[in-house]
């Protein structure tokens, strides 16, 4: 029943059809054993990663979720570099989820925290290098030559002594008999031909003619479409369902009530949507039936005002420092809840049978599908997961609610089911970037040096909801990352780029509410980058110091200083064109350091225009420069949309926003030119998918504050009477 679509899916997701489909697919070889990851926590098995086919193709399984970040291309670059093949020979495909693809750090297959290239940096290159050495050994056997004297290049093994060559395709059968080498040497960076090059994206061709398959595009024989009607509040439950009118809608086949949602199942989206409109459900709205974001923020503010919480950093005597300070800064800042609003609305497709659950999904959490099987009453190993392209992820697609719903509805109707939400459900049933409140205080001595620093953050914990054992002791490191230095009781580190002296106290108050919170591009940094950078600007103003000079003084690392200095030079900091106003911010996250100078202009009505953005990113090692530039622009756009417009509010238990007109996005006409400079000095490799986000909002508010002569203490900007032209 499913084989058709399944075959179709994998066929269409293959990058290039074989250059030469010479004969039948004879045997390829896959690397059997475990390339021992240089990343220490656990070893990774890489056997399913690569096959060199007898027809000349090199098939690379790319298990990380492609959600726009370019991982299809950059991951394959690592393997192709070491394998010494022509890029044209390479086919990339999205493999069925497997334990073989578990993430070296997380221990299960997932794409999160800008941690694909960083984690697979060694293991992926090892895959390519081991295959290369096996092919050289096979050629050595064939020629009676010492493999160490042979070279590999462009899909061939060459014997420099006599000019003999054998193509990889001719060596496959022999190589497949060999044992995997225990130790292989990786190429010296000076010999890289693929890494560091702006190789064209492997998925572009599929994305310009409509052939790329996203989750919403999965079509399985016999498949039905299910559209939800949710309880009005997050804590709501189904009490009673009157489905008579819904079932009377032409094309509607079933109505399936789950705990807090009722699905109308039909032959296609539109009849299901009409069924939802005809559905009558009696809800118990639960504890959170009257809850609001106003209440949540009251709770956060009270926690900060009370000053009580868990200490997450403490050194010296901050009380004494504040008592003896020449000047102090006391700043309270607030950030709103944010929705992900990925362009592809939430969906998942599942086929439940008593023996096996099959899932097709745009997911960031393939390795967690065992929980989906369990939710549907199957053992965790009885699940197969096919990953489609993701119409953006932003962290939302790490959650399992969609695959679980699809599995349960499929089970109920005994048919393959595609669950598909409208934009309204997507926006109202999200796991939101947590809103939070922070009070930041600084003490300056008579010379203007920072003599004391206090920060108190209050907000909801993502980990307490999703992975409670990582939020031990009521500390979630994501709530304080970027603001404080230390490690949570669960052992997860957090860091601040600034040395705030020897008298520091940082406190966190975990205030969990009925509003579900989740991972959102750059997670805690998305809020804390803005808070820290805004605070440093206030400190500079209080001390009469230039904001750039103060940052250079406080930064712990020369890497961060180099980013800021390069930014000053590239942007012409301090020499803005007449009528333009500059703002600056730098933030370190995901082992990368990214700074922006944002320049704006204003008109007489306080409408502003973003004129230009200069970005400098130190990412340690660059795999694909053009893709890095794209990712910088990408996080900037997400960051600008959030900073200017982004706010989710809950009133009487219900999310007030429901679609793009009331949860706005930056548009093309509002997008300024962005000039990106990449620093890659061979330092530890950093992530690129999220790192440009945190500095975006503070650079913009800095420019606006200077232009308008105001202080901005909460986001989004649009609620301060400031309008983007």
């Amino acid at each position, binding site marked *: 029943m499913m084989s058709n679509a399944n075959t179709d899916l994998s066929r269409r997701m293959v990058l290039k059809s074989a250059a030469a489909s010479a004969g039948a697919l004879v045997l390829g070889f896959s690397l059997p054993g475990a390339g021992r990851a240089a990343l220490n926590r656990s070893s990774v098995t890489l056997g399913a990663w690569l096959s060199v086919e007898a027809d000349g193709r090199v098939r690379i399984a790319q298990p990380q979720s492609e959600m726009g970040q370019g991982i299809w291309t950059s991951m394959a670059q690592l393997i192709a570099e070491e394998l010494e093949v022509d890029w044209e020979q390479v086919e990339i495909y999205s493999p069925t989820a497997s334990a073989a693809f578990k993430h070296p750090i997380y221990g299960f297959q997932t794409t999160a925290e800008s941690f694909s290239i960083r984690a697979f940096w060694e293991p992926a290159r090892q895959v390519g290098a081991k295959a290369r050495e096996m092919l050289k050994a096979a050629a050595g056997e064939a020629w009676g030559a010492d493999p160490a004297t042979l070279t590999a290049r462009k899909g061939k093994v060459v014997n420099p002594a006599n000019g003999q060559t054998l193509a990889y395709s001719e060596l496959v059968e022999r190589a497949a008999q060999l044992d995997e080498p225990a130790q292989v040497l990786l190429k010296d960076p000076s010999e890289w031909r693929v890494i560091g090059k702006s190789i064209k994206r492997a998925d*572009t061709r599929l994305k*310009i003619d*409509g052939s790329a398959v*996203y989750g919403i595009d999965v079509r399985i024989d016999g498949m039905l479409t299910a559209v939800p009607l949710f309880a009005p509040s997050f804590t709501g439950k189904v009490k009673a369902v009157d489905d008579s009118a819904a079932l009377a809608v032409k094309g509607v086949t079933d109505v399936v009530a789950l705990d807090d949602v009722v699905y109308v199942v039909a032959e296609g989206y539109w009849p299901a949507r009409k069924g939802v409109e005809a559905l009558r459900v009696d809800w118990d709205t639960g504890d959170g039936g009257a809850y609001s974001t106003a209440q949540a923020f009251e709770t956060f503010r009270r926690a900060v005002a009370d000053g009580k919480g868990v200490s997450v950093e403490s050194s010296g005597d901050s009380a004494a420092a504040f008592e003896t300070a020449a000047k102090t800064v006391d700043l309270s800042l607030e950030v709103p809840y944010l929705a992900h*609003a990925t*362009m592809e609305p939430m969906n998942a497709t599942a086929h439940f049978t008593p023996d096996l659950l099959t899932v097709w999904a745009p997911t960031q959490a393939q390795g967690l599908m065992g929980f989906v099987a369990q939710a549907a009453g199957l053992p965790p190993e009885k699940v197969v997961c096919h990953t489609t392209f993701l*119409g953006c992820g932003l962290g939302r697609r790490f959650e399992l609610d969609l695959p679980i719903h699809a599995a349960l509805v499929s089970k109920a109707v005994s048919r393959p089911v595609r669950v598909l939400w409208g934009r309204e459900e997507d926006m109202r049933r999200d796991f939101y970037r947590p809103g939070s409140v922070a009070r930041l205080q600084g003490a300056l001595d008579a010379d203007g040096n920072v003599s004391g620093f206090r920060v108190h953050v209050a907000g909801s914990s993502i980990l307490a909801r999703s992975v409670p054992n990582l939020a031990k002791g009521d500390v979630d490191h994501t709530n304080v990352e970027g603001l404080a230095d230390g490690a949570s009781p669960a052992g997860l580190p957090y860091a601040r780029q600034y040395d705030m002296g020897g008298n520091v106290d940082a406190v966190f108050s975990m205030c969990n509410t009925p509003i579900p919170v989740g991972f959102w591009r750059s997670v805690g940094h998305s809020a804390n980058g803005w808070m820290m950078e805004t605070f440093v600007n206030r400190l500079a103003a209080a001390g009469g110091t230039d904001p750039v000079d103060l940052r250079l003084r406080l930064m712990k690392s020369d890497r961060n200083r180099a980013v800021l200095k390069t930014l000053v030079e590239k942007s012409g900091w301090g020499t803005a064109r007449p009528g333009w106003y500059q703002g600056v911010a730098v933030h370190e996250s995901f082992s990368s350091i990214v700074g922006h100078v944002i320049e704006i202009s204003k008109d007489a009505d306080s409408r502003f225009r973003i004129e230009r953005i200069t970005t400098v990113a130190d990412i340690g090692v660059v795999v694909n420069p053009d893709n890095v530039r794209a990712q910088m622009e990408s996080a900037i756009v*997400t960051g600008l949309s959030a900073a200017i417009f982004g706010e989710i509010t809950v009133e009487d238990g219900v999310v007030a926003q429901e679609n793009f007109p009331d949860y706005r996005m930056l548009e093309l006409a509002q997008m300024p030119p962005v000039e990106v400079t990449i620093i890659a000095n061979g330092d530890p490799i950093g992530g690129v998918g999220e790192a440009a986000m945190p500095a975006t909002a503070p650079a913009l508010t800095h420019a606006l504050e200077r232009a308008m002569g105001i202080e901005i203490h909460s986001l989004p900007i649009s609620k301060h009477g400031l309008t983007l032209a």
Partner: protein
Amino acid sequence: MSVTIKVNGAEHRLEIDGDTPLLWAIRDNLGLTGTKFGCGIAACGACTVHADGEAIRSCSVSVADAAGWDIRTIETLSEESLNPIQQAWLDLDVPQCGYCQSGMIMAATALINESRSPSDADIDEAMSNICRCGTYNRVRAAIHAAVRSI
């Protein structure tokens, strides 16, 4: 009821309610999934198709109203070779997640068919499609590049 629509040069008689948005007829009835669903209220442009050569948002047009129009979707743009917009998109690696790009390409193609040398202001006005990935600057550059290539 039955409605006949002309999509990519072929007429299709569909047993379908006339109020069904054209988008869902294209996606669910015809199986042409290159045209995307983004908002359902014509706010994002992911569902953009051509109707008699003009870019329209197919989520907000009923299939009954579309009867008699010459509808073209992303799948028909490159039957023989890539059109100049697609080629420029490929050359500049415009897409990231790619989900909005069918709509972007349909809107851009309609724009350059109408105006052979659109100004930045023309582009600003015609390209109101939403992209969460931030491909806007490359979209603009690719439209200019496509125009130069014609």
